[in-house]
């Protein structure tokens, strides 16, 4: 019978990224795909959904930004410490077989699952334009990793400390105007993703967005992550959904529900 019990193993590696982000390497063959997530568990500290930032050679990685008590506790973990997880859960990004050029637009921690996707895409011989925006240079994530993977990295910052002083959808707009792009992928703040989905729709290019909501179970039952008005359950029917579908979701880019179910 189906069962998603926690698996608890010892961390193989803990790597500090830029900003407050930490990447954990977990020695377990998850058979994940880019865009999927795991429920990460630290006994006594709680459990959170975290997107997978890479998997190869029987190990997977998650990148966690210290924003609250749970992620701060995760950030303090050391090699050899125990960590629990269940998953992988949710839908994944799909690289079309017939595609040659792909654009990825990441903002903040959204770059984590996109770097996993970019590595898979370049390994398949696809041309990847990796557009990343952040508030400031020090907040840019995984740029070296993307360059190493062979992606063309296009950076921008809100303050102009790296790349042009603009938002990542502005860069996407230029890329779409000057290159033939077969599909667009995006993960990051919803206002950014909404803009990306709209630009892709206007340009008649396929698009996938990563949309998340407060999740408790991760397995499609608690109902906490169901969105208005279509009632789509994002932990099982998402987080990766077509851009056009995201644009049909009333709350996309405007509101969400907290742990009680209250709209905020």
């Amino acid at each position, binding site marked *: 019978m189906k069962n998603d*019990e*926690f698996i608890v193993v010892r961390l193989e590696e803990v790597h500090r990224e830029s900003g407050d982000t930490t990447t954990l390497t977990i020695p377990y063959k998850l058979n994940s795909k880019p865009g999927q997530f795991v429920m990460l568990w630290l006994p006594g500290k709680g459990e959170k959904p975290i997107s997978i930032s890479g998997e190869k050679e029987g190990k997977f990685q998650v990148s966690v930004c210290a924003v609250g008590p749970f992620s701060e506790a995760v950030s303090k973990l050391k090699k050899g410490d*125990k960590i629990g997880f269940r998953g992988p859960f949710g839908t994944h990004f799909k690289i079309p077989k017939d595609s040659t050029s792909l654009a990825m637009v990441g903002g903040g921690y959204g770059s984590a699952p996109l770097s996993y996707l970019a590595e898979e895409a370049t390994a398949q011989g696809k041309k990847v334009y990796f557009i990343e925006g952040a508030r400031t240079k020090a907040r840019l994530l995984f740029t070296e990793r993307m360059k190493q993977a062979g992606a063309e990295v296009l950076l921008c910052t809100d303050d102009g400390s790296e790349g042009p002083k603009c938002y990542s959808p502005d860069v996407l707009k230029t890329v779409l105007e000057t290159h033939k792009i077969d599909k667009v992928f995006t993960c990051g703040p919803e206002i950014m993703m909404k803009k990306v989905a709209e630009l892709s729709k206007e340009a008649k290019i396929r698009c996938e967005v990563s949309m998340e909501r407060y999740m408790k179970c991760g397995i499609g*039952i*608690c109902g906490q992550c169901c969105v208005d008005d279509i009632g789509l359950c994002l932990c099982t029917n998402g987080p990766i959904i077509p851009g056009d579908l995201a644009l049909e979701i009333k709350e996309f880019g405007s509101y969400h*529900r907290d742990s009680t*179910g209250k709209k905020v």
Partner: protein
Amino acid sequence: MLSTELAGVKLKSPTVLASGILGVTGASLAAVAKAGAGAVTSKSISLQGRKGHPTPVIATYSQGMVNAVGLSNAGVDETLAEIEFAVKNAGAPVIASIFASTITEFGKVAGAVSQANPDIIEVNISCPNVEDEFGRPFACDPGIAAVVTKKVKKSTNIPIFVKLSPNVPNIAPIAKAVQNEGADGITAVNTVGPGMVINIEAAAPVLTNKVGGVSGPAIKPIAVKCVYEAYKATGLPIIGTGGVTTGRDAVEMIMAGASAAGIGTGVYYRGPEIFSKVSEEIQEFMDKEGYKSIDEMRGVAHEER
């Protein structure tokens, strides 16, 4: 042939989404109804909002799951719009589940939630994962269960179903007690236990609350027995809930005396499509065995051979 009735409320299929599953938002309830549920039940609503227990709140194991969500909800004022949305868009009866920590509050929540015009109000007096806060569930004492029923009945004109606990030596006197105070029906049963799952590598209970209500296939025989006893004692319409995953499980509940089968944990195993699948499976069984209606199957296991 699959139609059934719960205290005058007509259902196209004898399958009901159980409370606590996919029931936080009106949009989600409507989506489950469109996926084939005969009726849908909201997550339990209280007077004030509640954060519930810290995660992990759900632990699966080989035969089911243990949960301690902790009755999180946004409070009745915030939730009214969700119930209204479901009533307007589900195309199937909507059951609003309510709970409270005092008799007076039960009356207030029932009155408030009635403004959204749900088809049925389910009175949850049996959640086993908040004992630290609320003490023993009201459903464990026939006297208290009766007083709550009386209070809710006075506070609304909508039919009420009282949700009972399996964690009692004998459910019959409690079922009888709520019937005597005017309950229009019974939902049997809430989760079993509470129980505990320990992860042995972590050497710790999985749930942050340590204990939680047990659901899923493991509890089905307990639920069937409770439905059987409650039906025998009252003859009231019953939503038979606990471990229903297939059409055959649902038939078992109906033969024990249920008018419809509640499905919760089953959604984990088979997705929201479980409602249409279970309906088809019930129909297949009825065709094979020559039953013409749900009513004809109801309670047949009580007949002496």
